């Protein structure tokens, strides 16, 4: 038996082009005759457009055209997550503002010129007269009487109210009969996704053929073709969306934005290739933000530590317009995760979706689940303190016991598989928890403040059954498809509809095919990111590419394997059931020397001179896959921090992550996903936060002002894993793209609060910057009489 390629940490196959500068991102594309598009954006968060004077801009060198919203003939941008059982209102979202602007960065005009410099110069020369209106940026304040109103058809700025409940009566009773109730007001601050590659679009219109091609920084080219067709009116079969190299997304390249559609529209007006690329400042103003909740949450328990109920009211900021999946994130992806890894019998989440004069909010890595996990884990720590229990023991008492094939939680989901305590125990062993607590106590006597945070989590990903998508109002399906095509000489191209952009599926999916069929990895190419070359798929987000597209690929490979087995039986003159397979060779049981290689079989199937009766020629199979359930990865994370009370500086000393995403195709790539996720989650806990002033100006509008995590903020993380296969995935695999982000924010937050116990600090709004930590210590000490 050869080395199994599944589970091997081989080097990535996408890397050679990326480390040599040969990779082509959208902004790298060039075509003869191309022109450049720049946007004129509102400097005001809320204003009426009184007049736009484009004459000076039009007279400038190199300027080809200037358009205002009245001239643009695109259809409005759709909101595509129409959550049911709510009173959702979807206010119109024009591609270019015509009467009113609703956030800083809302486009009011567009300028096309021969060079980018000329386009930017002319954009500055467009004179726009505004009547400035009062703005509102806080989602809770926006619902109050007298708050500025963004949309005439959205009274009190409330786009929807949505409730998920295991049964209101039971929830009420749990809180009424609880021995202890702990409460918290949590500000889930706004985050800016900051994919390193800004958004870009490059459009080419072929007037004679009436064909539109758009190179597009997208996580989901097929969705973007579908929606762009609706917005531009170009039918789908004449519209090609290509995601070339895409430099990260983290959710920010899922939505449909005006800019890409406008780039396409201008190409159609001028019949010339048009390029638009946002600056980083535009990215921070216009590309979606994440989180932005104000939450009132509480947890009920008995004196023995049995949690009997959890509930919350969430004001979710949605921005000036509803982004593509905006309403679904703080509801379906949030409220339905209030059980976490625990056996909570009573659960209720009420979400109020609120329009504010800010950048639209949509899915950012984890999307709804980090917010849910944070509030659960925060409340668990608070409850442990109230009960005078160790936070680990409280968690252990309430963890869902191990299950291999389905566990129903009170809110209505069925988790696929889990063994939460095993992951927790492993993490505790790595860190030697008891010794660490002793070390903490000892350090305190010496005036050093060490904190320990422990989180156990379960999350929902691998989105998801299409029937569920429909039931929860998602305006699309969530299946994937794959085609595996083998050339006569035995080289493999596998086409997938999903669209990886850094996650490494060109490598891991080749490993899957190699493992199933025996072709060497170097003979397999994964083709993705072009709607004309790939079958339909709904894209790469929600940690779904390997759970869903990977499943389609495995099943397609298994179909090919059965065909190869039948062909081998024919060639070896044996019965199909007598054919064994190993390492790319098919042979009659017991006679491994008399074998046909997969390549030999492929050639004979392709020339088709002598096929078994009823067999079609060729070696190609396609497979659609609609998953029967979501997948639910889980794990336990532990952070050790030290806080300097003199400066408020938090130093992360150790970070342990034990995650379970089922069998790992490539453990090196899995670890990379976890590392990156942890840093983004800790970014929220310690560094990041989008800040608006009361006028709706984004104060953190550049990388100078928005604190991104840097290399010297972290130690090396200590990773381990357990393996609990998903019962329904054909290879048992769960997703892992978001686990780090989901688990690390509360883990580090709880560690900091734990460190500050001697000062009596119980709550600090994130991010836990030195000034906030220092301030909290001062206030708490003075409240206690200054000890």
């Amino acid at each position: 038996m050869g080395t199994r390629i599944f589970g091997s940490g081989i080097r990535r196959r996408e890397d050679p082009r990326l480390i040599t500068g040969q990779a082509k991102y959208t902004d790298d594309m060039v075509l003869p005759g191309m022109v450049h598009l720049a946007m004129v954006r509102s400097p005001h968060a809320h204003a009426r457009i009184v007049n736009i004077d484009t004459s000076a801009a039009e007279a400038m060198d190199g300027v080809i055209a200037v358009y205002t919203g009245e001239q643009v003939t695109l259809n409005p941008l759709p909101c595509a997550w129409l959550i049911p059982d709510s009173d959702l209102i979807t206010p119109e979202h024009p591609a270019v503002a015509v009467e009113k602007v609703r956030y800083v960065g809302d486009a009011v005009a567009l300028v096309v010129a021969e060079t980018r410099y000329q386009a930017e110069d002319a954009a500055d020369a467009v004179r726009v007269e505004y009547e400035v209106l009062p703005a509102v940026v806080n989602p809770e304040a926006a619902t109050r009487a007298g708050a500025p109103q963004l949309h005439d058809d959205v009274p009190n700025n409330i786009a929807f109210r949505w409730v998920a409940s295991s049964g209101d009566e039971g929830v009420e009773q749990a809180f009424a009969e609880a021995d202890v109730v702990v409460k918290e007001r949590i500000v889930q601050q706004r985050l800016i996704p900051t994919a390193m590659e800004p958004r870009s679009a490059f459009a080419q219109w072929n007037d004679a053929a009436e064909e539109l091609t758009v190179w597009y920084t997208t996580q989901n080219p097929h969705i973007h073709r579908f929606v762009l067709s609706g917005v531009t009116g170009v039918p789908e079969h004449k519209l090609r969306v290509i995601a070339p190299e895409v430099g990260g997304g983290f959710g920010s390249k899922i939505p449909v934005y005006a800019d890409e559609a406008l780039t396409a529209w201008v190409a159609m007006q001028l019949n010339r290739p048009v390029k638009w690329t946002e600056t980083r400042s535009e990215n921070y103003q216009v590309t979606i933000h994440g989180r932005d909740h104000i939450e009132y949450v509480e947890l009920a328990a008995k004196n023995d530590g049995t949690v009997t109920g959890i509930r919350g009211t969430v004001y979710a900021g949605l921005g000036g317009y509803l982004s593509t999946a905006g309403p679904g994130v703080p509801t379906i992806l949030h409220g339905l995760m209030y059980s976490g890894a625990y056996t909570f019998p009573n659960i209720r989440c009420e979400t109020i979706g609120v329009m504010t004069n800010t950048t639209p909010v949509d899915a950012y890595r984890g999307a709804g689940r980090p917010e849910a996990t944070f509030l659960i884990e925060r409340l668990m720590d608070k409850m442990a303190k109230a009960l005078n229990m160790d936070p680990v023991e409280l968690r252990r008492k309430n963890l869902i016991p191990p299950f291999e094939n389905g566990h129903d939680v009170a809110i209505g989901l069925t988790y696929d598989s889990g063994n939460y305590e095993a992951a927790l125990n492993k993490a505790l062993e790595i860190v030697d928890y008891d010794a660490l607590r002793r070390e903490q106590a000892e350090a305190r006597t010496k005036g050093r403040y060490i904190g320990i945070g422990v989180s156990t989590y379960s999350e929902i990903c691998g989105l998801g059954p299409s029937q569920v998508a429909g039931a929860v109002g998602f305006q699309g399906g969530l299946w994937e498809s794959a085609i595996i095509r083998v050339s006569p000489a035995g080289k493999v191209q596998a086409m997938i509809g999903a669209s990886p952009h850094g996650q490494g599926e060109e490598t891991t999916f080749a490993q899957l095919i190699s493992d199933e069929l025996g072709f060497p990895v170097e003979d397999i190419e994964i083709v993705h990111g072009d709607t004309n070359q790939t079958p339909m798929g709904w894209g790469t987000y929600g940690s779904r590419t390997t759970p869903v597209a990977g499943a389609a690929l495995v099943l397609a490979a298994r179909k090919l394997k059965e065909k190869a087995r039948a062909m081998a039986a024919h060639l070896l003159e044996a019965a199909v059931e007598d054919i064994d397979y190993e390492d790319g060779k098919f042979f009659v049981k017991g006679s491994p020397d008399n074998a046909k290689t997969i390549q030999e079989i492929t050639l004979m199937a392709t020339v088709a001179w002598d096929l078994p009766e009823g067999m079609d020629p060729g070696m190609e199979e396609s497979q659609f896959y609609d998953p029967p359930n979501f997948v639910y990865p889980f794990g336990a994370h532990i952070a050790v921090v030290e806080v300097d009370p003199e400066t408020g500086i938090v130093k992360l000393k150790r970070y342990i992550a034990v995650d379970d995403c089922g069998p790992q195709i490539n453990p090196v790539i899995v670890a990379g996903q976890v590392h990156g996720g942890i840093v983004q989650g800790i970014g929220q806990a310690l560094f990041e936060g989008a800040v608006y002033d009361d006028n709706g100006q984004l104060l953190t509008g550049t990388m100078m002002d928005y604190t991104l995590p840097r290399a010297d903020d972290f130690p090396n993380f200590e990773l381990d894993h357990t393996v609990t296969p998903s019962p329904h995935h054909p290879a048992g695999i769960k997703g892992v793209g978001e686990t780090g982000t989901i688990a690390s924010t509360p883990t580090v937050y709880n560690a900091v609060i734990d460190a500050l116990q001697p000062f009596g600090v119980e709550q600090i709004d994130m991010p836990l910057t030195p000034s906030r930590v220092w301030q909290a210590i001062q206030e708490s000490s003075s409240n206690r009489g200054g000890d």
Partner: protein
Amino acid sequence: MNVSITINGTVYERDIEPRMLLVHFIREELGLTGTNIGCDTSQCGACTIHMDGRSLKSCTCLAVQADGREITTIEGLADGDNLHPMQEAFWDNHGLQCGYCTPGMIMASTAFLKDNPHPTEEEIRHALEGNFCRCTGYQNIVKSIKAASEKMGG
């Protein structure tokens, strides 16, 4: 203005606008698109190149300031088909995911090793403070640079 700039061993003479940034000269005038742009305030480091052997964020420099200088970009780092040890180390150690920050990371870290051929992990992390990565969490980038320093005789 006329400039003459040597990039990856080739002399390029062009008549350009005085305000043109070096990164735009490299990308737009010469079509060397391996050097990426990730911000507009010189924080991210995606556009890092070498000028006369020192690392430089090419968005902080006007093309006219590079007149008469020698520039190396990511396209010029390998020796023909032989990858530079730093490129090899990033590949070996999964030091990249989406790859957008990678050219800048590789250019910044190769210049760093010239100044400090035997860096500690802490020194590597400190040296990377001008280069952002949003995918890797930096851990494997640090590992890559450490591996390259050892391979290069560090």
